[in-house]
């Protein structure tokens, strides 16, 4: 807190933008997981990628309140952009991420003009519509995308020069985790900035913001574009680490599942997006091993039970437990 504010009689509070010990512990978990589950690196990599994808939805839904049922459009576009680059001799992974981010951001910016015109239900329709159009485009443009057979022939060059993508998926794991961490750190800065605060304001009371002098649509377009770029990078990571792009990167199912994961984890909290992904994908993995035929039943049951006890997701539940035990509360 500032000196003047202190003189004016303001009690200092714990600043939300400072890192908490619990957060540092959280980020050691994937490092531990690498050593504990060396045979599951592919799954862990998938979790990191989906977590980044979920983070991108959290930025636009959890912080700015824009509902989307077509977020896979950006994920898929990023995957195809990076995949096509690598299939045509431009296999540098970071170049692929950059191009995917730019292409997805461009689509995000253009479609934001449509999305921002309507209210919630209209937004669901518009986002769904954009994703459906891209899906059918990718389906139809077989010579370029491979259509239903998927995009093959992706050859990714070694990361930064020395780190080749190995068969065990070690490089892929560290690569995905590093990208997730860096982009999480950036998102964390953004949500604690004045821009992030204004997004919360828009979500909490969109009618008041113009009266404060806020250009609401410009702010929403900016965060929608940012969310699209994040999703595009997540898609590019999937294409590069699996060296394949399946048509279902653009599927409705992917968008809907993402929404489910975010609500499960707790939207409006960056860690909610990460924890939701970990819980959902771990449960998915374990249940499909235990009960290969009917695992979806148990997954559904788990989701219902969690939401029954914590309406605001796992993160909300944790926060309340933290408050009850008089700790610092949950991490934000």
């Amino acid at each position, binding site marked *: 807190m*500032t000196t003047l504010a202190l003189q*004016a009689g303001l009690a200092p509070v714990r600043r939300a933008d400072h890192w908490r010990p619990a957060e540092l512990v959280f980020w050691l978990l994937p490092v531990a997981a690498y050593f504990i589950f060396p045979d599951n690196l592919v799954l862990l990599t998938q979790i990191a990628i989906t977590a980044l994808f979920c983070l991108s939805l959290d930025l636009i839904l959890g912080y700015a309140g824009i509902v989307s049922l077509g977020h896979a459009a950006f994920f898929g576009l990023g995957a195809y952009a990076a995949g096509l680059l690598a299939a045509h001799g431009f296999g540098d992974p970071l170049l692929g991420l950059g191009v995917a981010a730019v292409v997805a951001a461009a689509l995000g910016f253009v479609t934001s003009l449509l999305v921002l015109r309507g209210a919630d239900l209209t937004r669901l329709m518009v986002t769904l519509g954009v994703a459906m159009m891209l899906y059918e485009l990718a389906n139809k443009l077989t010579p370029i995308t491979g259509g239903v057979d998927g995009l093959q022939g992706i050859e990714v060059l070694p990361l930064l020069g020395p780190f080749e993508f190995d068969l065990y998926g070690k490089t892929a794991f560290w690569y995905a985790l590093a990208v997730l961490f860096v982009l999480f750190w950036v998102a964390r800065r953004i949500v604690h*900035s*004045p821009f992030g*605060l*204004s997004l919360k304001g828009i979500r909490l009371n969109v009618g008041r913001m*113009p009266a404060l002098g806020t250009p*609401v649509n*410009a702010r929403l377009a900016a965060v929608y574009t940012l969310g699209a770029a994040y999703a595009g990078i997540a898609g590019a990571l999937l294409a590069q680490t699996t060296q394949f792009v399946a048509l279902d990167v653009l599927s409705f199912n992917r968008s809907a599942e993402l929404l489910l994961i975010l609500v499960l984890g707790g939207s409006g909290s960056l860690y909610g997006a990460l924890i939701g992904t970990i819980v959902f994908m771990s449960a998915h993995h374990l249940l499909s091993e235990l009960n290969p035929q009917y695992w979806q039943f148990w997954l559904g049951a788990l989701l219902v039970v969690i939401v029954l006890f914590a309406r605001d997701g796992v993160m909300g539940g944790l926060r309340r437990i933290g408050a009850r035990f008089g700790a610092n509360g949950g991490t934000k």
Partner: protein
Amino acid sequence: MNYALQTRNLVKKFGGFVATNDVSLNVEAGARHALIGPNGAGKTTLINLLTGFLEPTSGEVILNGTNVTQLAQHQRVKRGLARTFQINRLFADLTVLDSVTMAVNERLGLGARFWKPVASYAEAVDEAAHLLATLRLLDVAHEKTRNLAYGKQRLIEIALALAAKPSVLLLDEPAAGVPTSESRELFESIANLPRDVTILLIEHDMDLVFRFADQISVLVSGAVLTEGTPEFIANNPKVKEVYLGEAISV
């Protein structure tokens, strides 16, 4: 005469219904101007036209000599026109300090800064804290808005508007819904607002109007019935007729 806010032949029609009928209002700079009128007189519509929430069917809105009729709400705020709402429009889950800091950020042009934390913009936080001190809200600065009494929340309405450092402030029934026990503090805060801010007060409470205003316009059926000093309005037979049964005392 130096006018802070004017309307010229302002008309707003909703289908066949004329909500605002040829209103030409002149609010002097530094004035305490009240707009009164019975329910359905078109007071809220007029506010919405002034702030840009509604577009007029015809006519102009002039702010500090500039025609702002074509400007969006947030652009008019940037030019010095702020308002409060008849029904609280606050940020329930934000703390009082965060809400007001957010409003100060917008005025200082910091609202789109996305890299450094809110608290690092000390000038904005300091200004918000000062504003809270003026309105005697500093002790609840770290409370969430939803946890405050209604009277306190009405003060946050005013704090958010003042954060824009307006040259013209529209107060839309600031005392609406405030219990008598909390209204004195609110009235005092309104009376202590800086004199260089021009205030247009829309109010039902005649007590507050006659205590506060130096100029009164009476709106009836969307049109200005009459205007003048409080004494003039209090003794005006036409006004008495409109407010038949309501006691008006100076």
